[in-house]
């Protein structure tokens, strides 16, 4: 061995010894007897004491009567830990809306324990991560806004990520499974998934996690998979709040249509179940018809047009879990010749056009937006997990109760008026609560993030033809 190598080996031995002592002290809970520690580490006694002496001189350790503890340096280290936490909150603070915008917690949520996922890997704080987003489809404006939101989250992280890759599956679970496997083979560190409930996709997610890839589900959970985290909004709150408003608006009596979203998507099922549970408490409310709409405007339009033909003026209210199909329903009433102010009250917001139509035709409306900003939050949660942080198993992005002016009921008060929320200056297809700022326009959306050379979004908004 050359002199230089020998010197390096000795030098490493001393540094390694010091690090081992600090690690052993942490494992021992902060205090340990010198002899136990020395024996455990197998360091020569003299070397052990010399290292301890040096570390104690720098106040990293404290030494007294055969025991070793943490020195006075603990106090400034705690301060630095606080600063680190503050910085982490600042990096991941895009999706945090004002808390005042929150809907009140449901009684069941208040009692729900909050649990956290342990990271699959540790100590990758400043690695640049490769992230994949597997998106079920782009078949409505909300899904376009979700993709824009994920892209915005990645853009905000900037050089902290190496690449964001996005794939759309056109509602085909087999295709989505294949895309997830492709993304994994591309070498991604973390994956965001929004999928219909399918054993195939659940299997692909489980395979990815076995390979050490953190997976954050967004918008829709998979019953067969246990991801790192699930980011959404309380669908039960959406269903319950809007149904209670409709029941109270009708003074507990009337005949209603129910137009839920997509049967294969758990959010739609949860909202419908929650709404049905509320209506069950109003025996004078009759449900005339329930039609799954797939959150598509044309199906919402067709369902209401059919119901108008069949039930005519008996219809006193329309419950929709989103304005995506709600706009089709309102347009069907207008097309059938119902005068402004006489169209039955509707529920379901999200889409700018829903607010425009409600205000223009004087339709009483209640909405709890399903915020696409959950895409930004999903990126933030994934980034935290990739850095080796614990993250909540479930993250609920807050949303507001929005009513048309004068439509408050005994139990449902607005946090925003629809008249203040609508954007007359922006396209009908704008999905509100996107977290992308007040100037966000889905037609003009351009974004830069690592992996996106031409600043084009992976989701181009499509103009929906009036039904």
């Amino acid at each position, binding site marked *: 061995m050359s002199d230089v190598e020998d010197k390096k080996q*000795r*030098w490493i*031995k*001393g*540094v390694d*010894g*010091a*690090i081992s002592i*600090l*690690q052993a*002290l*942490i494992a021992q*809970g*902060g205090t340990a007897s010198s002899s136990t520690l020395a024996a455990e580490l197998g360091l020569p006694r*003299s070397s052990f004491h*010399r*290292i301890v002496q*040096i*570390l104690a001189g*720098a106040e*990293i350790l404290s030494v007294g009567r055969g025991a070793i*503890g*943490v020195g006075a*340096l*603990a*106090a*400034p*280290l*705690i301060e*630095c*830990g*606080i*600063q*680190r*936490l*503050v910085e982490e*909150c600042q990096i991941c603070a895009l999706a*945090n809306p*004002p*808390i*005042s915008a*929150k809907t*009140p*917690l449901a009684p069941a949520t*208040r009692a*729900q*324990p*909050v*649990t*956290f996922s342990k990271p699959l890997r*540790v*100590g990758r*704080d*400043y690695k640049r991560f490769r992230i994949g987003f597997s998106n079920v489809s782009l078949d409505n404006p909300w899904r376009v806004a979700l993709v824009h939101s994920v892209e915005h989250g990645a853009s905000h992280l900037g*050089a902290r990520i190496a690449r964001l890759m996005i794939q759309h599956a056109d509602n085909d679970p087999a295709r989505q499974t294949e895309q997830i496997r492709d993304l994994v083979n591309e070498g991604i560190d973390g994956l965001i998934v929004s999928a219909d409930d399918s054993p195939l996709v659940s299997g692909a997610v489980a395979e990815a996690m076995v390979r050490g890839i953190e997976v954050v589900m967004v918008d829709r959970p998979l019953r067969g998979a246990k991801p790192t985290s699930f980011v959404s909004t309380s669908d039960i709150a959406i269903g319950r709040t809007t149904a209670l408003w409709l029941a109270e608006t009708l003074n507990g009596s009337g005949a209603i249509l129910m137009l839920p979203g997509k049967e294969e998507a758990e959010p739609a099922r949860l909202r419908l179940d929650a709404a049905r549970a509320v209506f069950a408490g109003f025996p004078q409310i009759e449900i005339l018809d329930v039609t799954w709409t797939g959150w598509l405007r044309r199906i919402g339009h067709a369902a209401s047009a059919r119901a108008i033909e069949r039930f005519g003026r008996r219809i006193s209210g329309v419950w929709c879990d989103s304005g995506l199909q709600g706009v089709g329903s309102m347009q069907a009433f207008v097309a059938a010749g119902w005068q402004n102010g006489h169209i039955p009250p509707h529920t379901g917001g999200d889409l700018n056009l829903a607010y425009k139509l409600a205000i223009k035709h004087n339709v009483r409306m209640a909405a709890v937006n399903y915020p696409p900003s959950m895409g930004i939050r999903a990126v933030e949660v994934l980034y935290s997990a990739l850095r*080796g*942080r*614990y*993250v*909540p198993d479930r993250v609920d992005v807050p949303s507001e109760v929005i009513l048309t002016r004068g439509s408050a009921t005994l139990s449902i008060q607005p946090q925003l008026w629809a008249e203040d929320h609508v954007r007359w200056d922006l396209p009908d297809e704008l999905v509100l609560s996107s977290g992308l700022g007040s100037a966000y326009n889905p037609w003009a959306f351009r974004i830069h993030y690592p992996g996106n050379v031409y600043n084009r979004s992976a989701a181009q908004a499509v103009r929906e033809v009036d039904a």
Partner: protein
Amino acid sequence: MSVTETRGVVTLARILAQVATGEALGASAIAHTHSLSRSSVFNIVRELERAGFVLRRDDGTLVPGPAATALAWATYGLADLVEPAGAIMRWLYASIEGEVRLSAGSTTLLVLAGPARSPTDGEDLKITRRAGERSGPAEVQVSITLSASLEEVARADAVANLDRAVAALEGHLANRP
């Protein structure tokens, strides 16, 4: 122990003491400030980074890493709580409108301050919960400080979230080895 070994440990101690000051310096600035060999500082920083005692920020400056915080928290027997407690406090902070604080005895381990308040908000409302039975050198407490002007429903939600956070913390305290 040889002079070379001793020199390595002295350098390590100086680096740790320097990063604990909170002054944002990179490895070469630390070498310059403390008249240490540049290559030694870079090599030791690499070892400290690997062990999690030091983190390198995007701008190259060094800060204490999670292992350094764990060492400090070990004073209160809470070394293994650093990461879960950080996640719980981040969650609580995102869930309420106000300040959240985790303490061991009279020492604040973590604090995240709420948004700026209006001077007309009135007195703050501080709510404190003890987390678990005292098992270490100090009692662990979580507290939130809310603006007095906060609506009653939001306040009730904040207290419910505080209780949920404390329950999560107690879960981690109870499951420690």
